[in-house]
């Protein structure tokens, strides 16, 4: 019995700590944070289907980002069933995923898709996200098959809704 407990704890330990550079960190409630470099992430900026994608770049240390996260969560909750995909892309230091990012995600109870972008050479990939992006966060890309816009600013839910709802097919 004690052995089973030990194995169980061992397994839990591994699940909670599986967070190397290109892995998947699984949270206790089954959600996960995928850690990836830009090239792995890039296809999500060019999905060719009938969904509206709302991709928000944020970090736990960025106060305006944290302030607007509930707006993206509300968008996900309200329109997630209507082919709106909200992806929250954390730019936190990957070394801090266990100590900082996961506790934050759990505290905020984030439900949207979570990615941690582990790619320090941001000079290379910032213009690939948008030529308009200076590099400041928060920053958000909204696109569908017929529309693409980039926003280096903070959002309220109503403002997001106004941009996104006309794009829903």
């Amino acid at each position, binding site marked *: 019995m004690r052995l089973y407990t030990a194995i169980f704890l061992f397994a839990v330990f591994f699940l909670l700590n599986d967070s190397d550079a290109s892995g998947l960190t699984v949270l206790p409630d089954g959600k996960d944070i995928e850690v990836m470099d830009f090239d792995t992430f890039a296809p999500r900026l060019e999905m060719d289907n009938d969904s509206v994608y709302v991709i928000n770049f944020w*970090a736990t*240390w960025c106060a305006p980002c944290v302030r607007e996260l509930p707006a993206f969560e509300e968008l996900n909750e309200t329109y997630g069933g209507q082919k709106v995909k909200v992806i929250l892309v954390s*730019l936190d230091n990957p070394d801090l995923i266990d100590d900082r990012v996961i506790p934050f995600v759990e505290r905020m109870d984030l439900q949207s898709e979570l990615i941690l972008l582990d790619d320090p050479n941001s000079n290379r990939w910032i213009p690939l996200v948008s030529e308009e992006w200076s*590099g*400041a*966060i928060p920053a958000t890309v909204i696109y569908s098959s017929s529309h693409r816009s980039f926003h280096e600013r903070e959002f309220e839910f109503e403002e997001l809704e106004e941009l996104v709802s006309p794009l829903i097919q």
Partner: protein
Amino acid sequence: MKKVFLLLLMGIYSAGLFAQGYEIGDIATDFRLLNVDGNYVSMSDYEDAKGIILIFSCNHCPYVVAYEDRMIELHNTYAPKGFPLVAVNPNDSIAEPRDSYTKMIERAEEKNFPFDYLLDADQLIYPEYGATRTPHVYLLEKEGEQFRVAYIGAIDDNYRDAGAVEEHFLANAIDALLAGERPDPEFTRAIGCTIKVQE
């Protein structure tokens, strides 16, 4: 009187609110800002400089903190060659209390900054330059009494690990100027913290 007011208004607009900021080759406006040592500092005070490494910086931003030691090193390397580093905090201290003048003094003492660390207290300088984040670098080349923008962007290509840097954008740009050449690239980007203003 009305005309003067209108001109003044236009001046304020063109100086800040509606400006898109500097491009490479533009003449950078001088300023007079409070340093952590209690003195006011202008670019024109650097009489013997060949240029200035102007970095919009602050206390609280993890991306800045990651670069503090590299900023000290850059100043120690390039100030003797005529390119001192000048850090300017553009953040409002009510919007971000960790970037108050008192906290700036504390941070400068903790890290023993060898460079001037100034406060853009009225938040009029950063919009004129077009800075959007910290850290945000403007490398300025002195031309007579004027300072011309020679490079805008990032310090290097790896904020996390100084040892893993492949391209030292800023150091390369200064080396280019010292060699009488143009920086290449002259514009780069990096993730940074937004400049904090009161709502």
